[in-house]
């Protein structure tokens, strides 16, 4: 059972609040990655407020609960805000993001003991392997909960991803639901220009995965994709959701470009963004 189990209307409100957190966090330190964070906000909010079974009383081992791993660690703002809003730590701590002596490092880390983080991520391509290991440990422990992992689409350039993809198919790791954030953007430009991923769905299918596609910025479609993905687990194949999102979603001037991958808004841009991210009862940290 999800500890929040919110309705779609409530999820939308939470997502707006998380997006407010994201732009405020990166603005406060004039650094960080708002684009991918905003694009994946609905995914994170759906997972932590509806889909996953877990306890906000964090334990590293996470036995008998669903686990989530973030592989593209640079979208830490959305991860931190979601964890705080879901009850892993006080939302006030979001104000320490990227500052000295903070548990909210630029990229997620376990070193400072932030609840909710199970592995460091930032150097790309490693999270799928870690998630598969955790999934296989669950099988050894007769723990029938699921492991979720999010990767970027630019991250698919990394060779380790394909080592892990091949392993998952071969070993029939069917208690994992991986997701690729298919926003078609990476630092140097569009994924088509930088490194064309070709038919990503066919690639994963060729590696033995059950693949489905989802709209990542529409809760109804996203939740039904999660239901479909869950139903596909336990059938001898790892499950992949190719999730179509828009980088910067929710803030019009950040959308549709790689420009806001790793750039923070200035004071004026922050005000405009916050106006666009209205919530019924704003509870900014």
């Amino acid at each position, binding site marked *: 059972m999800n500890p929040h189990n919110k309705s779609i209307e409530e999820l939308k409100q939470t997502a707006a609040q998380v997006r407010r957190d994201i732009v405020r966090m990166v603005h406060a330190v004039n650094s960080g990655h708002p684009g991918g964070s905003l694009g994946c906000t609905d995914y994170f909010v759906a997972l932590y407020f509806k889909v996953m079974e877990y306890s906000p009383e964090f334990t590293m081992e996470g036995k008998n609960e669903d686990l989530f791993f973030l592989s593209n660690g640079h979208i830490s703002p959305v991860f931190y805000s979601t964890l705080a809003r879901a009850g892993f730590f006080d939302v006030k701590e979001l104000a320490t993001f990227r500052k000295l002596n903070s548990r909210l490092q630029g990229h997620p880390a376990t070193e400072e003991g932030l609840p909710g983080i199970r592995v460091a991520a930032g150097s790309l391509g490693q999270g799928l392997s*870690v998630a598969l290991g955790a999934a296989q*440990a669950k099988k050894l422990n007769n723990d029938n909960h699921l492991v979720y992992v999010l990767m970027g689409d630019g991250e698919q350039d990394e060779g380790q991803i394909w080592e*892990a993809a091949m392993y998952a198919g071969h070993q029939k790791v069917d208690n994992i639901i991986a997701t690729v954030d298919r926003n078609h953007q990476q630092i140097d430009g569009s994924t088509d220009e930088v490194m064309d991923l070709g038919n990503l769905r066919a690639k994963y299918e060729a590696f033995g995965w059950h693949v489905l596609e989802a709209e990542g910025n529409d809760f109804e479609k996203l939740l039904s994709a999660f239901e479909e993905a869950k139903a596909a687990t336990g059938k001898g194949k790892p499950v992949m959701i190719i999730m179509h999102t828009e980088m910067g979603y929710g803030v019009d001037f950040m959308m549709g470009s790689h420009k806001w991958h790793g750039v923070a808004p200035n004071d004026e841009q922050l005000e405009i963004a916050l106006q666009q991210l209205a919530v019924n009862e704003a509870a900014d940290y």
Partner: protein
Amino acid sequence: MKDFPYTEKKDTRSGFGAGLLELGRTNPNVVGLCADLTGSMKMDAFKKEFPERFFQVGIAEANMMGLAAGMTIGGKIPYTGTFANFSTGRVYDQIRQSIAYSGKNVKICASHAGLTLGEDGATHQILEDLGMMKMLPHMTVINPCDYNQTKAATIAIADYEGPVYLRFGRPVIPVFTPADQKFEIGKAVMLNEGTDVSIFATGHLVWKAIQAGHILAEKGINAEIINIHTIKPLDEEAVLKSVAKTGCVVSAEEHNRFGGLGDSIAQLLVRKHLAPQEYVAVNDTFGESGTPDQLMEKYGLSENDIVAAAERAISRKKQ
């Protein structure tokens, strides 16, 4: 000079295999992962007895390190197995981020380290692995000296919570340490007490140091020989105590002279007790094809090289 009689020669990798099998029987959390080198790593017995706890990952070492990190999250104690080169340099960033920085309880077990891998040549003969691994915060680095000690170390590290790099090798060498030894991480082992020079050796060089000790004794030189099986954390107390007595040092290792045991000792001496030190190590070069004995001779890692280094160290002490 003490005698170290032995009745058989065995490879240290077989000590690892035997230790892993014993662990499989005593610790249900221990799992094995291997990158298509099960036979070379001597992991077959574990695989046969515990197929559900053995994971063949194919020739994909980066994925293996990530998988191992993930398995710790479910309370498993993963032992990864591949050659030292593919256990370190090939996957440094995976170890750094997913294992060391993430504080994961992974045991990185590396065979065929150094020149004694032999005929396969320099592509496989890593001489930089100790340096890379000891540079990583949180990492413990262990390089045992024979079959029995490798077996004991393999078993002991399961009870230590944290990432470990366990280095061993391919050739058969004398089994001269006790079968029933208690392996203590970070605790140097006194092999021969002496007064003229301290020889700190690790891995395959420990037996060479013993042979050198006999030659030195014939020359009237009383060498203290200490087995440093744990490179990190270094047993500083044992090193300083010995150097206070002998006043000069030889470090001996099957590794580049940059970044290995010698540098760890030198750094300690600079900080705490200045004394002449001579390195027996590979002189910043790659290896080549050849038999293990030929290579150890050519690259200056023989017992005679240790003798010469000891004599140089002693003469510098007198200057």
